[in-house]
């Protein structure tokens, strides 16, 4: 077996002082599917960004076919036959598939771009790899699964021999994942080499030939996939036994706290993003929301939290109609919100932990004397919160941007959970954070549920929603297409069929989620 890439003693220190890679050695042989696994924040993505030229090493060497190479930017890596598909797609939505694929290396006729040749090339390459796409379709009209295919084709079009996929299945349904795996096998047969970043062990076992495991910025070894069990991998990743048991007791739902009735949201292009959605969230239960990204979940969260306003229908929180309410007034009803995009909405990264904890309490009586903030009380309170929520930091005055993703999320959660919320809207509460922090947040959510909060949990992580939720609703195309009273009785495959819109329940069945 011929070694194609070798990375030796990689050290990467980011400008904020975080050591993302420390003495990492990594090697890939030609024609294999190589899984790179590890917890969030273990340094997998950084290592691959270095290989693709997005980040530069602090120390260490990279060899391509035994020749030392230095990639200062992705263009240089692409020239050497390396391609990468990112977690977040890098496509131009308003262009067609063909235009996206040739972007950066467009066929020309004179000074104009040769559209027909672009379409022809795209068709050819898609056929060669058995990808079923329509080159003339606009990317914005494509599903997530198709967008990923476009990204892969784009890399292949630019001559990628080595293809890096950064958590490719995170956004896919189980069915789409299966399809992707078939495609990857085919690529392998055609002689391509694939690096597959993931932390889903089932998938890793299924698809890869070899596995490199990373933990806390270091590599803890490379193994033949068939020689290690899932338990082995998991132990190597975490460094200790993982307790998966949430210790969740059965929910005891009481009266309705949030009443959503016949709401619709129509955007400026007259598209219905939510159509005729009705459900209730009861005191003391966690209602999970699942769906493929872009089927109305985000819009639902926005209208519930006051970030957007519904076009039709009615939302009541604790029997108060929130029509025309500001975010502030909705929060005053007892609503807390863990936002999907924590860096954009959840925190001000240059402000201190203390200032970030304070943002929804700063004008509450306890912290004020006239217009002046009670510095001492606030400081004591924020110290206590940092301790209670296990935020790893030297001081509560540290700017939030110095923290890791998991600790940043703990700051958000500490703030949102500290006012004994009546309603919690948790949108991707553990996305991209380490297992320890995620477990901590899960426990807190269950604790608040038991104390009587009504929780709406939106998550793309199916395991998370299924483990945590008491009941579940499925969104497809802006509508609720299924309601499951007992989430623990479901399996991923069946849920996938509803998420893809292949199955849906009758109106009567769906209507049960209103309870009255």
């Amino acid at each position, binding site marked *: 077996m011929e070694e194609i890439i070798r990375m030796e003693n990689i*050290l990467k*220190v980011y*400008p*904020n*002082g*975080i*050591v993302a890679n*420390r003495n990492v050695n990594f090697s890939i042989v030609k024609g294999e599917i190589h899984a790179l696994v590890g917890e969030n924040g273990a340094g997998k993505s950084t290592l691959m960004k270095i290989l693709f030229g997005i980040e530069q090493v*602090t120390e260490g060497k990279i060899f391509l076919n035994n020749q030392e190479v230095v990639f200062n930017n992705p263009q240089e890596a692409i020239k050497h036959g390396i391609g990468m598909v990112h977690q977040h797609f890098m496509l131009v939505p308003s262009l067609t598939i063909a235009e996206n694929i040739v972007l950066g290396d467009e066929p020309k006729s004179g000074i104009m771009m040769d559209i027909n040749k672009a379409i022809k090339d795209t068709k050819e390459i898609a056929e060669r790899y058995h990808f079923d796409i329509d080159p003339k379709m606009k990317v914005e009209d494509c599903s997530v699964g198709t967008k990923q295919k476009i990204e892969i084709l784009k890399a292949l079009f630019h001559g990628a021999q080595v293809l890096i996929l950064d958590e490719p299945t995170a956004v896919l349904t189980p069915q789409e994942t299966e399809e992707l795996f078939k495609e990857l096998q085919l690529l392998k047969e055609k002689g391509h080499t694939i690096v597959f970043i993931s932390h889903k062990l089932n998938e890793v076992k299924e698809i890869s030939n070899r596995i490199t495991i990373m933990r806390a910025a270091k590599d803890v070894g490379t193994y033949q996939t068939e020689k290690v069990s899932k338990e082995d991998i998991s132990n190597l990743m975490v460094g200790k036994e993982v307790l998966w048991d949430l210790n969740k007791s059965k929910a005891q739902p009481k009266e309705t706290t949030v009443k959503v009735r016949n709401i619709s949201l129509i955007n400026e292009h007259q598209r219905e993003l939510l159509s005729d959605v009705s459900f209730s969230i009861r005191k003391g239960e966690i209602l999970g929301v699942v769906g493929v990204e872009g089927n109305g979940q985000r819009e639902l969260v926005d209208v519930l939290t006051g*970030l957007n306003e519904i076009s039709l229908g009615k939302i009541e929180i604790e029997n108060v109609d929130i029509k025309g309410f*500001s*975010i*502030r007034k909705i*929060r*005053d009803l007892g609503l807390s*919100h863990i*936002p999907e995009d924590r860096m*954009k*909405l*959840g*925190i*001000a*990264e*240059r*402000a201190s932990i203390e*200032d970030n904890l*304070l*943002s*929804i309490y*700063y*004008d509450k009586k306890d912290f*004020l004397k006239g*217009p*002046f*903030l009670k*510095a001492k009380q606030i400081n004591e309170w924020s110290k206590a919160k940092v301790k209670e929520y296990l935020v*790893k*930091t*030297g*001081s509560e005055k*540290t*700017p939030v941007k*110095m*923290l*890791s993703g998991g600790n940043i999320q703990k700051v958000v959660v500490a703030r949102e959970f500290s006012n004994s919320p009546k309603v919690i809207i948790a949108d991707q509460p553990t996305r991209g954070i380490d297992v320890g922090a995620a477990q901590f947040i899960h426990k807190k959510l269950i604790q608040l549920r038991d104390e009587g909060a009504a929780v709406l949990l939106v998550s793309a992580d199916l395991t998370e929603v299924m483990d945590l939720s008491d009941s579940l609703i499925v969104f497809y195309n802006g509508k609720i297409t299924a309601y499951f009273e007992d989430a623990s009785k479901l399996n991923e495959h069946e849920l996938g069929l509803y998420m893809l819109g292949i199955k849906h329940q009758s109106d009567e069945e769906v209507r049960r989620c209103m309870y009255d």
Partner: protein
Amino acid sequence: MTKLLKMKTNSVDSRFEAIRFIVAIGVALLVALILIFMVSKEPFQALQYLFLGPISKFRKIGNIIETAIPLTYLGLSVSIMFAANQFNMGSSGALFLGGTTAAIIGLVLPLPFGIHPLVAILAAGVMGGLWTSIPAFLKLKFGASELVSSLMLNFVAFNICIFIIMNYFRDLNAGTLASTKFFETVLLSNLVPGTRISYGLIILVIMVILSWLFMSKTKWGYALRMTGLNVNFAKFSGISTAAVILYSQFLGGFLAGMGGASEMLSLYDRFKWQMMPSYAFDGVIVSVLGKQKPQYVPIAALLLAYIRVGADTMSINGDVSFEMISIIQGFIIILIAANAFLKKYRQKMVVKEATEND
């Protein structure tokens, strides 16, 4: 371990900021040095005027403080607006308008001694505040960039003021454009004999303290800072960002207006301003040097004033012209504002700290 690391990075950052500040000024002065050696026949003499001139005489020290007073007002004004992430450049317009307002009150409103200047300064503040609120209002209502509208409004302010003075208050016996004399009760009397420092200095000290209290200790200051750091986060938290956009710019103009009044009533006994004061970007310079913190603004203003008085001394006594100083200023600002300046050095510091823990 990670905990330790994070703390260290923090201290690296503050240490680095201090080093960067000093190196920036050092490099700028070095450039000045080279230029002076190139253009001057007596470079050592010129350097002596530049660096020691400002502290050679008591009067010169007075000059530093006189120069620093309006710079501090402008620095405070810009700092509050910039801290809210509102790039309102209307401070110099507000200052001109404030000076004019104070002059008019000194011309038409007979009030008793002691109260008169306070009324004039307060009115000037309100006028300045209303003026810089116009871009804020335009932004909220029509989405107009406050940067563009405030810059344009500076010209409007200037010409309105000149128009009013010329048409209603002009002293025809004076050779140049000037108003008639103010009531004497409105003037801010001298505080330090031998200089032109007036009681305005005491008002300024109070304003620095109030600005600092406002920004770091009140709920409004908190809301303002959070809005400035991340407006989406502020909105998400339920902070009324529209209110912040308005009051930050009102207060910015208020301070600049007060600064104009303080100048007018300390240095003049009639309105004599002929052209737009050269303050347009001075507030920005002071604010950037002072890291947008009211408590640092006076220090930054004094530093800038020192350099200016030095340059003045050098150009009067030596053979190097005053413009030289604009070059030095420009360099300091570029170096301090450039985030990437000394980035490699910082990275080395960080890597060293991070790997030492192995």
